[in-house]
């Protein structure tokens, strides 16, 4: 994968990517960082992660790429904050484990999501930040349950349940919109 970076074309791509988007990277990092030093560290860690995804990044449209960069920085920043807290001896309690039975979406509900995808994309920000983070991590950044668990401070086993809830909240947005009309 990253072996492709040996090729000058790929190296130029990464350099251009950084050159064109460095303000966006730093601006996103600063939303989460306490100072400039932390922001720089978050950007650097994000770049390391992005270097491992060069083959995926090269195929993305420019707008999708911008989203991917910001999602990566956001995810890195949250990991960074959690790690920093541990180093300073502050323990961030694990999120309350989700209890209850896992009820997946039905076929009918999935078909509604499929039909109204464009509408959902427009209403994306109506979801909670937590749900957006979870769904972006899982389906856009393709993170594993362990990676998501680390970022959210919960066990990997509970990510499955959290995702089910997040997907259900997506369906609820559609239901609310239907009621409103």
């Amino acid at each position: 994968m990253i072996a492709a970076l040996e090729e000058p074309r790929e190296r130029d791509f990464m350099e251009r990517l950084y050159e064109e988007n460095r303000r966006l990277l730093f601006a996103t990092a600063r939303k989460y960082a306490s100072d400039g030093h932390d922001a720089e560290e978050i950007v650097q860690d994000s770049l390391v992660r992005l270097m491992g995804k060069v083959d995926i990044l090269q195929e993305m449209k420019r707008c999708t790429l911008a989203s991917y960069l910001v999602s990566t920085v956001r995810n890195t920043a949250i990991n960074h904050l959690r790690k920093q807290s541990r180093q300073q001896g502050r323990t961030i309690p694990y999120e309350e484990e989700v209890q209850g039975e896992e009820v997946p979406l039905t076929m009918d509900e999935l078909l509604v999501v499929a039909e109204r995808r464009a509408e959902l994309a427009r209403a994306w920000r109506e979801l909670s930040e937590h749900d957006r983070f979870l769904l972006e991590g899982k389906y856009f950044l393709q993170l594993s349950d362990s990676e998501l668990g680390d970022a959210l401070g919960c066990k990997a086993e509970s990510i499955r349940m959290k995702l089910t809830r997040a997907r259900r909240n997506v369906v609820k947005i559609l239901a609310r919109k239907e009621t409103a009309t």
Partner: protein
Amino acid sequence: MTQREKALENYENALFTLLLSEVAEREGDRLLEEQAQLGDEEVPISAAADQRCRQVMAKCRRQEKNRVKRRRAGRGLAKAAVAALVAVLLFTTALATIEPFRIKTFNLVIDLFDDHMTFSMVEDENSHITPAPVLTANWIPEGFTLDHEGTTLMTAWVQYMNAEEDIISVLATELTTGSMSYSTEDAQMSTISLHGTEAQLIVGEEMVQIIWSWEADPTWLLSVITQGLDADTALKIAENVSATR
């Protein structure tokens, strides 16, 4: 999970991946607009911070390049061992048919080319092929374990590897059958003193090669080849190699 439930889960995953792709495009358009408004005043980035970020990318590239090189070199060493075995078979055939070959003596000649160094023998008198030495590495760094070892008519080797796939190879090669080449590409070469004789030290980015003639029987060439270790460590290994019969 039943087959239907599995299919439903796959469909759900594919659907949400598509949904997130559309969300990413929409969000991306907004982010690009935002980025166009960001100037030096809104997001000041110091030249030093900018430089450090570029250095991080350069370091990643170097690390990956070295990792790929090391993997290729590992495969190269394995191929070299196979090639040595094939050469032994050919040599055995030659021995059976060309009797005078057995009574020649040879002198070591080192030829230096642009990208490699070749060790070979020139004919002298009154010699014969001698048995391979038994190689012992009396010191190796911590973490290395024996990977494989072997002896044939013309070669003997012992190889160690650690969890990071760094390699230490100790080789003995009989030179009357041909020559041995060592890569010198992008490497620094020097002559050192080792085991009471002159040795060639070739230090590359990832590979260190130390080659010398076995003092007990100069028709045998000894070498230590390491990957992922520094020259001092490789030298310490070579200093502690013993060859006996």
